[in-house]
């Protein structure tokens, strides 16, 4: 029958797509990255993109610190200053910590649960491309001069009244990024719930997987809230709606309620992944299991719930009234309890261990040490009346940098040092890594500890400059010096990273004596990760394959050969089993391209000479639909 097909028969769409997809499988070089659906490659792209934005956000921070180093400076002008701190906050939250966490979800989740990829590989690629394009869109103002200027929190009505297209880029950029986060959130929930290796019950999951799960739920529940807020802002800006305009019955506080109802869960979206990473690293380097696994897991889940009931602690001075302020003060105190539990359990993990002071551990301990300070200063915010003084001062800036830099960024760096070898097959230099750690720790504390004092001395946030005689000069100078030390530490890190990729010591599959499944497969892992899907018998499965108790109750290593680990897996892989892997696809990228087209159209079409932009809206919709249909119709796998 097949031979009877006449040659001139037109190729059906399905066949064309099938052909395209098989062709994509043969792509080499950059094209192979563009069409990739491999979670490891997507993870690498997420990580590198996020790191580049980390450098950009860091440069913005340097401008802020240079401007504030001394009183009465004008390194930039006030408008530029506002733009730079707006972009600094927006970048660090949405373009650095979130995607860096996403990088770890991508890289680690399948490896740690014994899966070959995520549940929806193409959705995963879509998620990355949407993130990249949304991030570029958000930063497009650097080219046109329309830079967002109303703060990362975008308080209405200032954000409604902001002139130019800066806040349009901000608002639509965040909408696009929200789509990316939602796609990622659903993907990881389904992956974690459905694709765990046989035997890996929920309570055998590594804590990092638990925290990814909680974070993903927070993402899919919190993003819609800011989406609504941003839609309302969009209606106010584009169509003169009155959501936030009190003259026509709107309310500026509506924005704050919506924004922080998103914003507080967002804080946990930023910190829980780092907590998960640290919860993996401390046991490995203390060489004993996480102390009180159920407590750590349940406190993470609890944080995920209570995190929804504390948003008004960002609004204590807006006049909510004493009863509401008291209620949100108390709820904020309550959330400190599960957070404290985590810290004590980490201490319990180290206590009685045999601690290997390698760089991943140093960064993890640094995370815990700095997070303690940030957590404690957070308690002072829960004491509402004292927050009446601290609100919107540098004291708050100190607090959240201890949590988000001292906490999240240190945690993410510990993850980079820990898992670098898994994906490169080489080790980061320990010596240079330690220089990086001590510089970053010292620079971080020099920069942000004085902010506590600045806040208590009455220095408000977001001020362009300040006069002499306020008592702020010394602390600002110390802080700026510290910022340069942090910058130096980043140069050391980049040197280490690039050098180690090229000439780092070769890493074994399991250089840290790891406890979780990713250490049972080669470094770097083959595209299919696991030649044979592992069967899980215990929490810390990899460790239990290596160690047993002897008859005297001592823990001894399983003699080589008796262990069913790396070698046998590699052998199985080398035999060349035919493993079905998802084929590459370019449709996620095509679909993603439609989104910024629509956003550009919306941004510009109402301008005096903006007629050209109107067609971009339907064109973007068409591109998006082409992407989605191509994606839907092409064959799923070989």
């Amino acid at each position, binding site marked *: 029958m097949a031979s009877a097909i006449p040659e001139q028969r037109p190729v059906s769409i399905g066949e064309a797509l099938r052909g395209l997809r098989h062709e994509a499988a043969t792509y080499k070089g950059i094209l192979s990255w563009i069409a990739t659906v491999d979670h490891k490659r997507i993870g690498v792209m997420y990580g590198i993109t996020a790191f580049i934005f980390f450098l950009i956000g860091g440069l913005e921070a340097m401008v802020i610190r240079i401007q504030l180093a001394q009183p009465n400076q004008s390194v930039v002008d006030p408008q530029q200053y506002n733009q730079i701190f707006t972009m600094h906050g927006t970048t660090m939250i949405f373009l650095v910590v979130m995607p860096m966490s996403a990088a770890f979800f991508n890289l680690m989740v399948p490896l740690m649960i014994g899966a070959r990829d995520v549940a929806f590989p193409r959705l995963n690629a879509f998620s990355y491309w949407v993130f990249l394009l949304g991030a570029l869109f958000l930063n497009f103002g650097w080219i046109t001069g329309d830079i967002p200027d109303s703060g990362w929190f975008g308080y209405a009505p200032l954000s409604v009244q902001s002139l130019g297209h800066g806040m349009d880029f901000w608002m639509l950029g965040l909408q696009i990024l929200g789509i990316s986060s939602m796609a990622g959130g659903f993907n990881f929930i389904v992956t974690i719930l459905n694709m765990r290796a046989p035997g890996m019950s929920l309570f055998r999951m590594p804590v990092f997987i638990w925290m990814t799960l909680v974070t993903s739920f927070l993402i899919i529940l919190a993003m819609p809230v800011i989406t609504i807020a941003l839609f309302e802002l969009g209606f106010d800006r584009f169509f003169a709606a009155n959501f936030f305009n009190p003259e026509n019955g709107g*309310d500026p506080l509506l924005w704050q309620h919506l924004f922080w109802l998103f914003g507080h869960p967002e804080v946990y979206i930023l910190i829980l992944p780092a907590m998960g990473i640290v919860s993996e690293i401390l046991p490995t380097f203390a060489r*004993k*299991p996480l102390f009180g696994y159920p407590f750590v897991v349940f406190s993470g889940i609890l944080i995920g719930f209570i995190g929804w009931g504390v948003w008004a602690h960002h609004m204590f001075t807006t006049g909510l009234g004493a009863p509401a302020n008291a209620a949100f003060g108390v709820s904020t105190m309550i959330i400190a309890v599960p957070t404290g539990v985590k810290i004590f359990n980490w201490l319990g993990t180290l206590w*009685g261990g045999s601690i290997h002071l390698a760089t991943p551990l140093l960064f993890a301990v640094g995370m815990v040490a700095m997070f*303690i300070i940030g957590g404690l200063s957070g*308690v002072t915010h829960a004491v*509402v009346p004292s927050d009446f003084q601290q609100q919107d001062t540098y004291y708050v800036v100190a607090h959240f940098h201890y949590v988000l830099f001292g906490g999240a960024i240190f945690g993410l760096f510990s993850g980079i040092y820990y898992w670098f070898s898994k994906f490169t097959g080489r080790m980061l230099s320990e010596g240079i890594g330690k220089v990086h750690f001590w510089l970053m720790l010292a620079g971080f504390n020099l920069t942000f500890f004085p902010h506590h004092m600045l806040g208590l001395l009455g220095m408000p946030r977001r001020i362009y400059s300040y006069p002499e005689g306020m008592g702020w000069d010394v602390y600002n100078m110390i802080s700026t010096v510290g910022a340069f030390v942090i910058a130096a530490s980043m140069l050391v890190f980049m040197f280490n990273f690039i050098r180690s990729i090229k000439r780092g010591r070769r890493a074994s599959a399991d250089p840290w004596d790891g406890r979780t499944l990713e250490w049972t497969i080669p470094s770097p892992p083959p595209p299919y990760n696991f030649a044979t899907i592992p069967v899980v018998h215990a929490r810390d499965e990899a460790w239990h394959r290596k160690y047993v108790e002897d008859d005297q109750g001592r823990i001894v290593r399983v003699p080589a050969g008796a262990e069913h680990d790396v070698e046998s897996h590699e052998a199985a892989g080398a035999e060349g089993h035919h493993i079905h892997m998802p084929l590459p696809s370019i449709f996620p990228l095509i679909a993603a391209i439609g989104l910024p087209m629509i956003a550009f159209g919306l941004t510009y079409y109402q301008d005096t000479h903006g007629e050209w932009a109107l067609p971009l809206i339907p064109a973007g919709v068409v591109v998006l639909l082409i992407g989605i249909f191509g994606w839907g119709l092409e064959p799923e796998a070989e």
Partner: protein
Amino acid sequence: MFHIKNSRTRFGVMSQVARRLPLFLLLFLLLLAVGCETDNPQNTFAPSGDVADKLRDLYLIVMWPLIGIMVVVEGLLVLSLIIFRQKRGQAVPRQTHGNTRLEVAWTIAPALFLFVLAIPTITTLRDLATVPDGDVMEIEVTGRQFSWSFRYPNEEITTTNQLTIPINQTVNVTTTGVDVIHSFWVPKLAGKADAVPGRSNAMWFNATEPGTYSGQCAEFCGVGHWEMTFTVVAMTQSDFDNWLRDQQAGNPNSNTSDLTWHPEE
């Protein structure tokens, strides 16, 4: 196989941990002490009014125990690294999975501590929400890009960027914003009251000593936010009465009458 590598560097780093962390803590306390002692125009630790006094006291009640907790917990962290650092050829440690009793204890202990903190929090909130009995001076504060106006509804005057009050007089400010959100803040006298368009927000305070107090907008409100400063001048009742008479007469010698701004016009 697990090998103990780089033992020399590790011991070097170990002593660095031991030496440096306490040093950091000491540095922090020192910096904090400096903050307490200097007297600067917006120092929340040098209050000149009953409300700011309450807020400072409450902060200190909270701060000292928190510093204590910080020192203990950070100390335990560093100590655990020192005591339990890996020794050459050390066997795998006992694989303890937890200790329910201990964990319940360190869940309940912070909960109790926070419960104790909640008490002064709530009582202070109640105190601040209740304007003290007796004579109260009403002021309507309006924030706009980028200046402040202060209307005295009973005295029928309005001033700009300077609020003049008698000492030991309870002042009740009602704040609102015209264009965007601002926040009224005089650190030495009281906390913040946001000035939100379409809403009014109230806060009472007093000044216990005569003087000029520095105030500043505390909510980001645009390009001039950093310059949106104002002063509160507190004077004795008789000085205030004189000032008020000058104002009501439109006396040009008065330091603020030329700045008067009438939002209704």
